[in-house]
């Protein structure tokens, strides 16, 4: 049997040097990738037929023709509100419709009129609005250039890599076979000249025949391709750009690398066993969004395609010319639908992308606290004992998690009758402690006629079908399993209804959900996922593979909302994701390993996700596979405490690692890290409110806030939380010190633990001990904390705030305070929240309402105000709206210039001013 039919003898050699997991991913999809990557830059065969140009209020349409095969494409250009351009290319007359991704855009993006500035036989020039921005459509060869003034911001098809495998009838196969001996049938499609990629032997370019176009074989799997080849490709050139980011999920550096001579970054949701680091291999999720950044401008490219996708990146860095990065996107099927987000600032790009796909779901406050997970907590007694352990060791936690073993034979929505006979008693026990639980609900459904969920899905015809129309079945945790077709809205509605309290027996309002294995994972499928020719209604899995996980989480989140009558915010964790998944909850970086390098990679992995909308990201604290050393575990807690999703998790086969199992000293270290997280929850919550409100990432690379500081562009061992906290966790084994880069010329940063002041724009060496978590507050910011750390975040709800005012060198500071009920949609539906501007200027600190239309009453008050970088006042006066003035006592630490105002006592929701004299 030929192992791989579209490749040659040489390629497997290359593959055999790699590990098996990689081997799998490279091989299965190589046909499309190879055909497309075989294309080399050159003159595009595509020509714009200017006579077909039509300009309406909302769009411009224009036909393109491939001069080699005369197949026509239809180009649609849109100018979108918020400085974006949408470019859509489809076949003018496809044999049948090609897949266009639904449910990812939150609406049909509002357009703005394009105006024609000039037109001649070479092309047309369109105005993109006020900023002297133009869009130039060149006719022969076809290309697009977006200009600002005389500067090219971005060009499409400038390298001639636009390619569109049009749908054709299989009859062509016979024809092509007839032609095979005399000519390369591929030349029918891409008859322009191309030079073979360097890993092909010269003889091979001839071998690049029709094999793999209508059927691919990998190991024992055959992928039938009834629609034949259907891939698409387009290139983008970014003059002046040396740094591109995004396109998660990859276990790689924040700054994307060039892929010349290597594999492209691959986007194809897969359940990868023990993934490798610094590798463009596909992982669990895919977000086809890339950001480009230079000191002048930030832009984004959103390639809206849910099929398997590859991204090639090349760059001329190092040469004497103007730097330029060239990017090429290839997808196996679908259409070209690309959104060019023109920035110009990082914040603008975030807003632009948010306007397309929505923002981060605003999680319940408790979901930002600490999560204790393990595969598996064995039974109710185990859960109770772990819960008790946290109290005995005075370590806060909010959620305890149950993995697959809690179910009755991996039948989701059920409980093991021996280990969890009384789930409600267990949940009530947690509720009595104001804590919560997450249970796992995976999308593979055990094929078992005595299982209600299976029977209903089968009888309703909701399962994904195989190519022959029968229910698709694959092997997963429960054994033989069906896969519900989550792309079907009726299926999703039914699934959501299964979370109703009377359907999901034993569930209660403090129980939330975890969707794992939703790539989907199919143990006996090609690359451990679904066969590409499996059918979701009329569409193949090939067309929408990367969307499946998004739909699972969407349906689950909807279920949690519905069960509460639309009142409560859901919390759903997912492993697979796509563009738009941010709207439904949290993601984690999957099955990592208890190794230092995996701790380090958690930073760029979550930063990359944050840049493309997914703020609620975390890695398994401690590492999933293998057992961490105590030092690694402690360092991971310290790092995780400052990452958005903070959950410890461990593989079934690893020794227990609850925080108190490593001796009192390490227990104390972990306790301290978790307590720091809890104290900072008001700030985290506020950051998530902003992420939800405006799409700004919670965890940010430094360049987002210091876009002109080139020193920050490749940094991924430290990060910002919001604008105001800089975190440089210790991720080196035996680390004695870290060198943190404090950005901002003329700015200052305060060590949050010692209040020591440091100047910006310097590399600061910080000696560390095992208890150190280097964190700095930006001078000029105000951060609210709750100093009374209790056993769960809910217990801290009404506690008072301490404000940390870090003065800029100009003795100025600004911050915010956001408060709501912490768990319902009332903040949104009824404007029940408090959002206040805190500002320090002219020796006065004041709190003013930022949301006059809102209304919320909190018992919380201002307990303490700590002003860093202050001078000693003679007196401090608190003024409240009722006209009262109270003198505040204060302490002043001259050595650190820290002024502490004692007990202002004023309610956190009202206007007040403290004047220092």
């Amino acid at each position: 049997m030929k192992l791989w039919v579209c490749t040659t003898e040489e390629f497997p050699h290359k593959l055999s040097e790699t590990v098996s997991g990689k081997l799998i991913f490279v091989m299965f999809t190589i046909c499309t990738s190879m055909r497309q990557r075989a294309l080399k830059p050159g003159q595009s065969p595509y020509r714009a037929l200017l006579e077909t140009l039509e300009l309406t209020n909302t769009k411009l349409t224009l036909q393109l023709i491939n001069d080699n095969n005369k197949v026509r494409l239809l180009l649609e250009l849109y100018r979108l509100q918020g400085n974006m351009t949408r470019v859509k290319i489809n076949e003018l007359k496809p044999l049948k419709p090609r897949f266009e991704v639904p449910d990812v855009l939150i609406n049909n993006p509002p357009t703005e009129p394009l105006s024609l500035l000039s037109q001649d036989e070479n092309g047309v020039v369109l105005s993109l609005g006020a900023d002297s921005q133009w869009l130039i459509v060149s006719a022969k060869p076809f290309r697009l250039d977006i200009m600002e003034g005389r500067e090219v911001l971005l060009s499409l098809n400038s390298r001639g890599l636009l390619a569109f495998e049009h749908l054709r009838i299989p009859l062509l196969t016979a024809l092509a076979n007839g032609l095979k001996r005399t000519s390369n049938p591929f030349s029918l499609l891409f008859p322009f000249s191309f030079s073979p990629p360097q890993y092909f032997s010269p003889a091979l370019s001839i071998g690049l025949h029709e094999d793999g176009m209508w059927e691919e074989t990998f190991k024992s799997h055959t992928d039938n391709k009834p629609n034949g080849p259907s891939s698409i490709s387009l290139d983008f050139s970014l003059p002046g750009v040396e740094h591109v980011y995004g396109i998660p999920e990859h276990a790689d550096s924040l700054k994307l690398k060039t892929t010349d001579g290597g594999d492209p970054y691959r986007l194809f949701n897969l359940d990868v066993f023990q993934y490798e680091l610094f590798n463009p291999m596909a992982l669990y999720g895919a977000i086809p969004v890339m950001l480009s950044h230079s000191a002048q401008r930030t832009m984004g490219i959103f390639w809206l395609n849910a099929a398997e996708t590859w991204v090639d990146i090349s760059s001329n860095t190092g040469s004497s010319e103007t730097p330029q990065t060239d990017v090429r996107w290839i997808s196996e099927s679908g259409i070209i639908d690309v959104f060019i987000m023109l920035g110009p600032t990082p914040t603008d790009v975030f807003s632009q992308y948010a306007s397309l796909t929505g923002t981060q779901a605003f999680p319940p406050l408790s979901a930002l606290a600490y999560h204790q997970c393990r595969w598996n907590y064995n039974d109710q007694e185990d859960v109770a004992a772990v819960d008790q352990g946290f109290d005995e060791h005075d370590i806060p936690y909010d959620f305890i998690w149950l993995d697959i073993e809690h179910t009755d034979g991996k039948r989701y929505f059920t409980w093991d009758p021996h280990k969890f006979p009384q789930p409600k008693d267990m949940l009530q026990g947690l509720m009595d402690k104001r804590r919560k639980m997450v249970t796992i609900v995976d999308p593979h459904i055990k094929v078992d006629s005595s299982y209600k969920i299976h029977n209903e899905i089968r009888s309703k015809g909701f399962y994904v079908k195989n190519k022959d129309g029968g229910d698709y079945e694959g092997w997963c945790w429960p054994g033989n399993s069906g896969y519900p077709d989550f792309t079907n809205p009726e299926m999703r509605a039914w699934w959501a209804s299964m979370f109703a309290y009377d359907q999901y027996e034993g569930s209660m309002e403090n129980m939330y959900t975890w969707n794992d294995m939703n790539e989907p994972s199919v143990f006996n499928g090609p690359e451990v996922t679904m066969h590409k020719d499996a059918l979701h209604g009329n569409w193949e899995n090939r067309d929408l593979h990367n969307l499946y996980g998004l739909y699972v989480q969407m349906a689950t989140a909807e279920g949690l909302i519905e069960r509460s009558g639309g009142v409560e915010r859901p919390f759903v964790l997912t492993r697979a994701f796509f563009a738009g998944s941010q709207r439904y909850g949290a993601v984690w970086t999957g099955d990592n390993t208890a190794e230092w390098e995996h701790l380090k990679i958690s930073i760029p992995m979550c930063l990359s996700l944050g840049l493309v909308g997914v703020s609620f990201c975390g890695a398994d604290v401690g590492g999933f596979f293998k057992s961490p050393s105590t030092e690694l575990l402690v360092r991971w807690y310290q790092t995780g405490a400052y990452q958005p999703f903070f959950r410890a998790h461990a593989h079934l086969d690893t020794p227990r690692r609850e925080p108190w199992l490593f001796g009192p000293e390490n227990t104390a270290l972990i306790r301290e890290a978790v307590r720091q997280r809890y104290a900072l929850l008001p700030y985290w919550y506020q950051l998530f409110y902003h992420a939800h409100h405006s799409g700004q990432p919670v965890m940010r690379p430094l360049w987002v806030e210091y876009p002109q500081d080139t020193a920050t562009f490749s940094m991924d061992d430290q990060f910002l939380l919001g604008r105001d906290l800089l975190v440089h966790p210790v991720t080196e084994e035996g680390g004695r010190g870290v060198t943190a880069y404090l950005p901002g010329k003329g700015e200052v940063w305060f060590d949050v633990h010692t209040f020591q002041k440091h100047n910006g724009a310097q590399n600061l060496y910080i000696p560390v001990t095992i208890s150190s978590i280097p964190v700095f507050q930006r001078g000029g910011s105000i951060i609210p904390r709750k100093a009374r750390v209790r056993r769960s975040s809910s217990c801290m709800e009404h506690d008072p705030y301490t404000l940390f005012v870090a003065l800029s060198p100009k003795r100025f500071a600004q911050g915010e305070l956001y408060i709501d009920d912490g768990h319902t949609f009332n903040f949104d539906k009824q404007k029940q929240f408090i959002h206040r501007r805190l500002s320090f200027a002219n020796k006065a600190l004041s709190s003013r309402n930022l949301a006059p239309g809102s209304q919320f009453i909190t018992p919380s008050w201002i307990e303490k105000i700590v002003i860093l970088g202050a001078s000693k006042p003679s007196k401090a006066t608190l003024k409240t709206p009722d006209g009262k003035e109270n003198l505040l006592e204060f302490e002043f630490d001259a050595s650190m210039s820290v002024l502490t105002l004692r007990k202002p006592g004023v309610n956190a929701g009202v206007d007040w001013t403290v004047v220092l004299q």
Partner: protein
Amino acid sequence: MSCALLLLLMSLALAMGTGAAVEIQRPRGVPLSKRQFYEENKPFTCLDGSSTIPFDRVNDDYCDCRDGSDEPGTAACPNGSFHCTNAGFRPAFIPSSRINDGICDCCDTTDEYNSGATCQNTCREMGRKERESLQIMAEITKEGFLLKQQLIHEAKRGQEDKQGKLTELQGSKKGLEEKVEALRTVKETAEDPEKEAKERHLKAWEEQKELLRMEKDKTRMAEAFLELDDDADGYVSVAELQSHLELDPDSDGSLSETETQVSQGQSEPPAPVETPQEESRDFVSDHDSDHYPEDYAGEEEEDVEDDEEDDHDEEEEEEKVTPEKREDDEVSMPPYDTETQSLIDGTYSHLQSLICDPECISICRNLEKEIGFDFGPSAEFAYLYSQCYELSTSEYIYRLCPFNRVSQKPKFGGSETNLGLWGQWAGPEGNLYSVMKYDHGQGCWQGPNRSTTVKLTCGKETVVTSTSEPSRCEYLMEFTTPAVCQEPASLDEVLHGHTEL
């Protein structure tokens, strides 16, 4: 809201409520023992001496002292603690963070005075329950401790017996050696030079015969030794054997005679056995509980009941068969003119084989091994040696054989899994004998070798009460035994020793 509570004294409420208890006035959350530091209307000095504040800042919901001592009754200090009197139950300290957190921590409800939580005073009920359970525990401890004394006594005797047996075995070996020496002299003397020629003829045959005999003797003598029990009878039978050999120097009949002697001299059951395991079986047969052949080889999947039955069957069979066997084994001897000589030769060889018998050596070693075990400070755990205890769960039968191994067998078929072999005592310092550790069990896929921690608690019965697998392939077993029962304190002391009020 913020600073509402100043010096709310619980005494009033209590006094009004019960009309009985006399509460001494002190700020909320202060234990009686520290009352003197909180004197009303006098400046308060933090208990660490770090600063002094006006008394109205005690419990004013703002943390002034670094040690948290100014806020014993509020949650203001991160490192503070709150004292619940818990009248009717035990007083307790809770972290300040649990004050007014909406969760009832103190059974007297005093920690939730401003959270809206509705707590019930459960102290009396809890006190009653605790007293009941303490009472039960105390009774168990008392009886358990008595049992323990008995165990210690028995263990002491057992140890002495074994030591004695060992000494005697060693002594008898010495005695045998002396006898061999004596015999050799006799033999040499008796050996008439005239018969040297004949002897040469006979030598080949003699050697062959002796070889056969030695083998038979070895087996039988091993059997004899295996019958050794707690008491020293086993040894005596050996002695009798010797004397019999001397008294009745019929080499053909001597062995069956010997066997009879051995059987007479041994304890129940009166049967020869084949393996050292049976020695230990006899040892444990004094006790009531189920017993199990000690598995020296660490072999798996032995079925106790079957083994025993088989053994008995074999024994019976063997006894019936023996005479025939003997006849079969009987050597047809060529004519001899010097019976005496051959007798001497036979006895000599036989005694020599006794001295060098590997089974005998192994018995000595096993005795030494058992004597060498750490059975606790007073050997109170000695009775567990060679015993096995089982616990049946929904899926598995767990078996603990103390000082030997732990295993798990699926209830509905499947092979037994070794969960660990005896490792060592692993209790915390000062309580070493509260935990047993068994390790180097069967390996786990992608994981460690299985191991089991056995936690011992005081109980009248010796029984496995629970098993769990808190971590993959790391098992936890709870085991009650009188051997860990401590001398009970008087009940009054237990119940009232630490109660304030």
